């Protein structure tokens, strides 16, 4: 049984259909890459799955249950983890406190009113563990706002790890990272994949990365799912070649 399924999932912004009747199922323990040109609707599709955006039509099924009507907090509590493309942190809190909050969310003691948060050493230790996994231990006491872009991306990922979800949604996790920072994130994704029981959705433009990590690739253009299959087969498709080439040209232009 698929762990996650979207059926005819659709969202409209005024007259513009950003995600158009996407039907797709994700098997547990697999890594699916989602590719497509900028503005294709990949982030919007993620928003519909994790609940940041209500769907105009269609449904989202998680572990066999319809979660379409649930808010993002309840979907997270059910096991949907999300790292955002546009870094979305608690800027004036320390790096450690950012992760500690995620650990606390996972531990479900948000309504513990009478104990001191600073005395929950188990939660703090766990937070340190996840900081270690994204190589941010040295920055633990820095405010999130003071981190470099690359470090903020890592912290973004650490928050998702700390939630210990069943499904990890990475939205361009390495975008804008320097070359030496990228492996930290890719190794991490690989580690999660190796563990075997976790499901991963990965939006990523770097086709070499996608080919190496993905079990399957789906392609979105203009909000529509246009291709779905084995990486080698999908990469060879003209639509993907087109999109991929477009990105290559743009990156070359920027660089």
């Amino acid at each position, binding site marked *: 049984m698929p762990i996650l399924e979207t059926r005819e999932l659709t969202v409209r912004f005024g007259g513009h259909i950003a995600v158009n009747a996407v039907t797709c199922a994700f098997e547990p323990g697999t890594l699916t890459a989602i590719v497509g040109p900028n503005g294709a609707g990949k982030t919007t599709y993620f928003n519909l799955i994790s609940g940041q955006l209500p769907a105009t039509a269609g449904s989202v099924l998680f572990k066999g249950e319809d979660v379409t009507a649930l808010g993002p907090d309840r979907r997270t509590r059910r096991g949907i983890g999300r790292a955002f493309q546009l870094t979305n942190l608690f800027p004036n809190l320390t790096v450690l406190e950012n992760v500690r909050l995620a650990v606390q969310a996972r531990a479900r003691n*948000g*309504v513990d009113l009478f104990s001191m948060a600073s005395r929950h050493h188990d939660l703090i230790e766990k937070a340190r563990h996840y900081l270690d996994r994204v190589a941010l231990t040295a920055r633990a006491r820095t405010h999130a706002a003071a981190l470099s872009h690359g470090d903020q991306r890592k912290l973004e990922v650490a928050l998702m790890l700390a*939630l210990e979800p069943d499904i990890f949604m990475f939205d361009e996790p390495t975008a804008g990272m320097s070359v030496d920072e990228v492996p930290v994130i890719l190794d991490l994704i690989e580690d999660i994949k190796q563990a075997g029981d976790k499901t991963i959705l990965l939006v990523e433009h770097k086709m070499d990365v996608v080919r190496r990590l993905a079990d399957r690739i789906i392609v979105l253009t203009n909000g529509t799912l246009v291709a779905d299959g084995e990486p080698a087969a999908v990469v060879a498709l003209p639509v993907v070649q087109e999109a991929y080439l477009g990105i290559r040209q743009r990156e070359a232009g920027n660089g």
Partner: protein
Amino acid sequence: MTLDGILSGDRPRSRVLSVLLVAGFLALLGAPFLFPGTKALGVAERICIFIVLAASYDIVLGYTGIVSFAHAMFFGIGAYGEAIALTTLPVGWGAILFGVVAALAVSAVLATAIGFVSLRLRALYFSMMTLALASFALIMATQLRDLTGGEDGLTFSLPRVLTPAFRLLDGPLLGVRMDGRIVTYYLVFLATTLLFLLMLRIVNSPFGRVLQAIRENEFRAQALGFSIVLHRTLAGVIGALMATLAGAMLALVLRYNGPSASMSFEIMVDSILLMTVIGGMGTLYGPMLGAIIIVLAQYYLQPGMAVLSGMFAGLPVLPRLFDPDRWLLWMGGLFVVIVYFFPTGIVGRLRERPANDG
């Protein structure tokens, strides 16, 4: 228990602030002996009560970011709870207990309802809704004469232990007569200390950290799995319950309650809001300092101005400028100056300077 345990790990983090807080605490602890006299004792009591009230508003405004103008309503509910219980039931501890429990129940229900509504309304409309609710409560308090005594309010008696007629000791202690007023003061002082420390604990608990996270980035807090409705509503209820307790203390201290004593917009704006903002939102220590400063100003600014005005008699303009009737003008001026120079409040300002870090 360690100091960190008592303060829930939330140290003042500024040497000047530490000194001010310790001085304030000691002054209140020794108030009946340091500042003898009925008026001074009344001022000290009022400071204690407003410390609880302003701190409770800080949980709502500063820690949770809810701009509610209905906080004085909860203060009034607490005061009316006691006043109505003590005028309708036989005077005694049972009536006092009943009054406070009934008031807490009413406040809890109202605050829960407000919390759920807050999620449906945009911030501005929500604030206006609380304003409307507060007006409605005030109108109810003045109109339901049979229950509330209308504009005149309710005057009532207390158990003998809490009255001036009661003698704790036969002779004076350090020159001060140990009567029921002193007993009342120390009960209020003790309750204030415990409630303040409890609030300090709550804002530093895992729950308090979630409030901080919501204030920082509500979208992300929700994405982490925290329910915004639950946390905001609970924070609102806690703030309301604390304000209710402060109101109950006010009624007991005054042995009276009426609309202007506890529920008015003057209390909401000139006291609660002013104390919290001037002291420093989201710090709890700030509203404590704010309460001390504002209550002192309310009591001593006017007489102080009368003295100044007298001193300048015969000179042009000055006597009129310091006319006691202009004290609100000076309060307003004080407010503007403090907000302009300390936008993060006194505590925010004190904590900014690394040199002060203790």
